[in-house]
């Protein structure tokens, strides 16, 4: 018997589709082949992880059919096995995997739908944070405001897509109208995903507030975020955007950027 570390490394290879001989040579057949016995474990691993991906990406599964989803999941699990213990944290790179997965190429909207489902998953499991009190910001010297950074609620994701992914998502819910049709040429969306109460929800935003909040979520300072919003729409209303942000309890903390935004 090799040292445990070596045995586990060979078992790991065998489970992920690598060579099985180094693992099975230490296993008794007991009426089956040793390969068949190792295969029982491999089957369980893939069944569990595929079910976890199906639970996180039910709309993607519906769009491509369960059998094809099983094939894509199998390929994904081999290439990107989990690197953490929680099944709900598995699948963050599945949207990018789908974007590069040749058989999915005709479904160009699929990676964006997957990204929406991942954002809903993140929103569901995000830590709960106390919203930032606007009074704290009001007390800051006015000249510091351009350098202000705001940490958004960890449940928030801001997504853009060239496809009508919100409509696609809704049309593929279990209670959706079976006759509903989505016009793929109807254009893209700017979405904000977050948790409200117990529910992960999303809604479309106008391009400028979306650019503003996206920049803030990347820890850009207020000056940079305002610049991004003005690039999108030169009628952007900064005071209103800030009031909305706090009314919607989106900010949970603040800081000061060391960058000089006026430089």
């Amino acid at each position, binding site marked *: *018997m090799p*040292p*445990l*570390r070596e*045995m*586990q*490394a060979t*078992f*790991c290879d065998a*489970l*992920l589709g690598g060579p099985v001989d180094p693992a099975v040579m*230490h*296993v*008794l057949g*007991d*009426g*089956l*082949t*040793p390969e*068949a*016995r*190792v295969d*029982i*474990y491999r089957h*369980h*691993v893939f069944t*569990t*992880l595929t079910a*976890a991906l199906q639970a996180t990406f039910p709309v993607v599964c519906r769009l491509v059919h369960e059998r094809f989803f099983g094939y894509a999941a199998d390929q994904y699990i081999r290439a990107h*096995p*989990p*690197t*953490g*213990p*929680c*099944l*709900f*944290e*598995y699948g963050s790179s599945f949207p990018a995997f789908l974007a590069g997965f040749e058989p999915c190429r005709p479904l160009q909207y699929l990676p964006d739908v997957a990204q929406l489902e991942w954002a809903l998953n993140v929103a*569901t*499991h*995000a*830590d*709960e944070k106390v919203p930032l009190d606007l009074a704290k910001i009001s007390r800051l010297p006015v000249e510091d405001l351009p350098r202000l950074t705001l940490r958004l609620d*960890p*449940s928030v994701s801001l997504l853009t897509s060239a496809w009508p992914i919100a409509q696609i998502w809704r049309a593929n819910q279990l209670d959706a109208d079976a006759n509903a049709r989505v016009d793929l040429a109807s254009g893209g969306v700017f979405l904000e995903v977050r*948790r409200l109460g*117990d529910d992960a929800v999303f809604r479309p935003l106008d391009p400028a507030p979306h650019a503003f909040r996206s920049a803030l979520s990347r820890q850009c300072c207020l000056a940079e975020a305002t610049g991004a919003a003005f690039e999108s729409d030169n009628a952007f209303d900064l005071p209103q955007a800030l009031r909305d942000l706090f009314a919607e309890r989106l900010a949970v903390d603040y800081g000061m950027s060391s960058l000089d935004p006026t430089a």
Partner: protein
Amino acid sequence: MIGGDADRVGAPAAAGIGLRAPHVHEVIDTRPPTAWLEVHAENYLGGGPALRSLDQLRPSYPISLHAVGLSLGTADGPNPRHLERLAALIGRVEPVLVSEHLSWSIAGGVYFNHLLPLPYTDESLALLCRNVDQTQIALGRQILIENPSSYLRFRDSPIPEPEFLAELARRTGCGLLCDVNNIYVSAHNLGFDAMVYVDALPRASVGEIHVAGHARNDADGLTILIDDHGSRVSPDVWQLYAHALSRFGPVATLVEWDTDIPTLDTLLAEACVADGLLYGARLRTSHAAIA
């Protein structure tokens, strides 16, 4: 070493149910008469509604945290970050029991999310003792270790599993979670006597029992039992459970059901069967005390 009998508070010696997502709202709304609840710890390491549901249930039920991802048999040892997150969850939930498995699931940074088999050697025993010690220190409490369901044996695995568990408990002060269905499944798949296995476990260390259903699969003409937790507990497993109670006395017992999850009433009915057998075990214990 942490643990030993003095530290054992434990769950009530009555039947509890494994709380799974489809039943959470119904359990919160109706507070059914079950003695305690067990959840998979790794499903509650995030925030949000899952954690809030446990907060709501804590006043009504003792909670047991059953970890499935610590990988105590991994050569690399448990992940410190995972231990931290689990310790924080324990601080919030204040569970009556915390348990893990005699298995491994991590190698080279890959997490298989499945309970993989160990050879039972002196090297494995030393490693398990080290990892269980480290875990009990990090969590500040005793944990219970569950016997796995097995589908293979290693050529070089000289220590019988119950002896391995007994020695682990003796050296680390951990308790044992006796999964009767796993013993039944492994005994069938590997050809040993389930009753002899139960009799070899150290009576004083067993702090919890699991029962569950299993499936029968055909593999090249050989029937392999799969521990899928997807059906009622089989009559043979109830019989082995009764034998376990006659050896261990009344012990907190959990009914697990994880696939093809039934109605809550069906799950509670299974727990009633366990409660009936526990009642018999309590009567025997009190008779023995009087006699």
